[in-house]
């Protein structure tokens, strides 16, 4: 693998995490539990898709093979997407949506904070900008963990159920392979073990405060970095890519 190939792959991972989570949040458009949340979730979706767009543009320029950001978003198949397993999980109830969001916001918050120092100037610029937006995302989802955990018995139960179900996808975010190792040596990528420690502290603290527990002895699921996904991604892509595939090159 060349550095160029590793960098292309790394940018896809960053972009796909945002694109897929952004798409999931966009599903709440006009279906949010209250008007303010409908607006909040779709605004966060917009931030994430905007960041994904810039990262995919950069990925396309690295690949330099005639594909643009739209081709990468709408014409890749499931096995060529590298978003985390957690990001593709369906929204289900609002507790489920917010637990998923919080776990990923906290991951993005520390990852982007580290990537500001990347020796790759484009990654540094995009993550510096992105981090400012993600700070607001994390503040939003942290508030919900508090409210749902300390709300009623029902809201606490549902939030705990969501944590129990989603926890098996959390380790997948921190998997590192040759791509990471190569780029860490070059000062471009960041060591995900460092991110994991910070992430654990934030998540433990928030859950403890909200009277929520992390499940013990969970069988962890992996695979996103080899493009191996849960059954949910295919359906998501079918919807997200439909228009572009049915009407190639369509414009508003």
């Amino acid at each position, binding site marked *: 693998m060349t550095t160029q190939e590793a960098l292309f792959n790394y940018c896809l991972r960053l972009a796909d995490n945002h694109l897929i989570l952004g798409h999931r949040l966009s599903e709440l458009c006009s279906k949010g539990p209250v008007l303010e949340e409908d607006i909040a979730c779709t605004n*966060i979706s*917009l931030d994430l898709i*905007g960041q994904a767009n810039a990262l995919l543009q950069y990925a396309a320029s690295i690949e330099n093979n005639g594909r643009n950001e739209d081709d990468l978003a709408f014409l890749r198949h499931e096995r060529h997407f590298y978003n985390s397993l957690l990001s593709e999980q369906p929204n289900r109830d609002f507790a489920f949506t917010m637990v998923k969001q919080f776990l990923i916001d906290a991951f993005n918050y520390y990852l982007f904070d580290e990537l500001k120092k990347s020796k790759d100037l484009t990654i540094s610029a995009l993550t510096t*900008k992105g981090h*400012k937006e993600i700070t*607001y995302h994390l*503040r939003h989802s*942290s*508030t919900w963990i508090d409210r749902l955990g300390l709300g009623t018995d029902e809201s606490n139960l549902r939030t705990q159920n969501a944590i129990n179900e989603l926890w098996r996808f959390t380790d997948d975010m921190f998997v590192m392979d040759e791509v990471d190792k190569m780029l860490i040596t070059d000062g471009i990528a960041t060591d995900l073990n460092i991110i994991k420690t910070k992430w654990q502290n934030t998540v433990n603290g928030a859950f403890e405060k909200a009277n929520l527990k992390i499940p013990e002895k969970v069988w962890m699921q992996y695979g996103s970095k080899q493009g191996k996904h849960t059954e949910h991604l295919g359906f998501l892509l079918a919807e997200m890519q439909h228009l572009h595939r049915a009407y190639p090159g369509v414009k508003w």
Partner: protein
Amino acid sequence: MNSISLSIDEIRNLLSQIPDPEIPVITIADLGILREISIQDNTCIISITPTYSGCPAMKMIEDEIIKKFRENGVENVKINMVYHPAWTTDWINDEAKEKLRIYGIAPPEKSTVNKSSLMSETKEIACPQCRSKNTEMISQFGSTACKALYRCKDCKEAFDYFKCI
């Protein structure tokens, strides 16, 4: 190919008239979206930066810039999207902040977003209508990603607050 008859300063004056599509009382220059103007090989190169990464107004701003040049007989225009340095609300000048307030949007406070914001500490935001500081946040995300929704507990009016970033 027509040669460009406008100077950089003339171009800057021209583009500084373009209002922000979402907040038409301030211009793209007031907001700091317009970053750099240069002329190379008979082409105007205009660098702009998005406020938020997903700002849907950017495409419209690009179209407005191209339209403005066309009206002045210039066809060779290239728009360059830049991400560094990252846009900050600190670039909005005091005059523009006052225009925001009169329009009904509470302008951003001075300091940019930092780690203390994680603690959900809320700043005192003055109501743009009655200037009371007896206000509360309704939602962290308002009509656009760059604004939060607040309510004044004195005059009872809901208002947008331009978040610091």
